[in-house]
């Protein structure tokens, strides 16, 4: 479980997060929604330890990310908004490096690499350098990197962006499998169809606070909208924006 407790953050005097609090339970997929500038990326970076919170605490599996950064990071798998591949390494070398960085070695390492290769259908790419990979292939390698050490928590920043149909399907399939294995999954997205199909829970952020937190059905109920998109617009931009969008 990831819990964010009263986290505040300012950038050059501008408050980006204001006493933000939520938790991501195990075995569930949580979607993080928010307009651009709502503080989503900052929030995710605080959870992964790239950015320090000005106030408040973040716990990953009860580990405080500031006081136990290395331990907390071992609990996390992260897929960023860019893949962060090394073009001069092969997929095998790339994944082997991150698995070792996570502390795997020996037969444990081999097993982790083999299983992630099979799960994400990477055989044909395995010994190729990642230069010139398609968007879908890049996403697969990036996801494999996030999963190779079997983290209990997975964070994805707009994972389906630019993916073809097959890759998107594989991603969805994988997320659903991980959920069944008890992994806590947090992903940000703009695609409402995907959110409504995948997520058990939806968090909507606006102006650095969570404005809504619940199952998609609860959100629809609360906003009295027919679909999640309208509901999101209503929550994130307010009623006025929603009406304008309808007109």
């Amino acid at each position, binding site marked *: 479980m990831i819990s964010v407790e009263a986290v505040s953050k300012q950038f050059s005097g501008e408050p980006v997060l204001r006493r933000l609090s939520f938790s991501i339970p195990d075995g569930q997929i949580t979607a993080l929604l928010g307009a651009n500038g709502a503080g989503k990326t900052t929030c995710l970076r605080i959870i992964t330890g790239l950015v320090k919170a000005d106030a408040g605490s973040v716990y990953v599996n009860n580990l405080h990310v500031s006081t136990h950064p290395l331990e907390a990071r071992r609990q996390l798998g992260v897929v960023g908004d860019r893949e962060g591949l090394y073009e001069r*390494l092969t997929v095998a070398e790339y994944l082997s490096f*991150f698995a070792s960085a996570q502390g795997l070695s020996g037969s444990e390492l081999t097993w982790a690499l083999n299983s992630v290769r099979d799960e994400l259908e990477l055989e044909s790419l395995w010994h190729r350098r990642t230069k010139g990979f398609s968007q879908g292939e890049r996403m697969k390698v990036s996801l494999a990197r996030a999963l190779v050490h079997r983290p209990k928590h997975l964070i994805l920043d707009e994972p389906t962006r630019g993916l073809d149909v097959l890759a998107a399907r594989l991603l969805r399939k994988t997320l659903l499998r991980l959920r069944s294995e008890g992994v806590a999954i947090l992903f940000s997205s703009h695609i409402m169809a995907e959110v409504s199909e995948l997520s058990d829970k939806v968090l909507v952020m606006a102006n650095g606070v969570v404005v809504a937190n619940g199952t998609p059905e609860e959100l629809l109920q609360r906003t009295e909208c027919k679909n999640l998109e309208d509901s999101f617009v209503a929550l994130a931009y307010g009623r006025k924006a929603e009406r304008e969008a309808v007109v």
Partner: protein
Amino acid sequence: MNFTRRMFTAPMRALIRKELLEVWRDRRALGLALAFAILFPGLIAAMIMFALKSQGEKTFRVALIGGENVPVLEQQLSKGSFQLDSLSESDPASLLNNNYDAVVKIADGFADDYRNFRSPKVYLYVDGSNRFSGRGATHVQKNLGELQQLIVQQRLVARGVAVQLMAPWQVQVRDVSTPSSRSTWIFSSIPMLLIMTLFVGCLSSSIDTSAGERERMSLEVLLQQPVEAWQIVLGKVIAVSSISWFASILALTSLMVVFPFLPLAEMGIKHATTVWGAVTIALALLPLALLIAVLQILLALRSQSFKDAQTQLSILQFLPVTLLFILDMSAIELKGPLWQLVPLVAQQQWFKVLLVGDSISVAWVIAGSLVSLLLVVGCILGGARALQRESLLGAT
């Protein structure tokens, strides 16, 4: 020992391996490093050949006008490194324009005047604007001087005068230079070029591994891993310096290979770099390679973008060498103990000494290298702090 243990953990090894793979597979960086390492001995060889041409033994073309009547002079002038052409009446100026290094003209009635002790004239024409002309003239004077000395001796003997009377004392020139010190001038540029190789050798890869990785966003992923920031910097420094160290060793090795083929001994110059000296140079280059690598990485990390890093580092390439050059020129006594602790200056001094085959104080080399290594450690810690700065990653 916590630190040492962490130095050798599996994640640390994986980091180093990853950085090494990245750096050594970068064709452009490798090409640049190797090209410089190969170019460098070529440059030195060319320099030495040029020096030899202007210094070493050369056959001078000398024209002798009116020499057919004084065969003894003619014979004397053709001794040694001369190609002597005996010509009848001709214009000295046009002969000098025509590839002659010097023209000797014998005055009319020379032999008669000589026999009658009237000190006849020998005219020596030179072209002062021609570098070889002056040296040709010196050689002519030396050859004529030998004959002159013989004649003076005979004239003194004929009068019953001991030749020693002409030499109230003898001046014995004692050159205290050793073949190694004579060669210092030629070897003094080599340390500079070796240090330059360290800079250029890791230029491309230090930008790629820092500013490049940031731009490709893979740095963010790296920072999310459960490794310490200093470990990340250390991995990069080791990988980046490995390529420049390799380049400098390659340059040194190719120099060692080229040297025996250069006609150094003819110039009275000793090529005495011992294997021990070369190994010491190679070892002493390592701390410097690490220091230069970490400095270049830090600077590249600080810059706004990849392009900006390229501009800043290009300037940095020339800065230290210019500085060393100025120090060299300014005649500051660099042999003092304090300078032995200043990175760059210290290494330059050691290499100069080692290249000519002299030995240096091991204690100072170790002390100086430790100073460099301490700076490396400081820079790595500084780099680690820089990596943790939020602004490093750019927009939120």
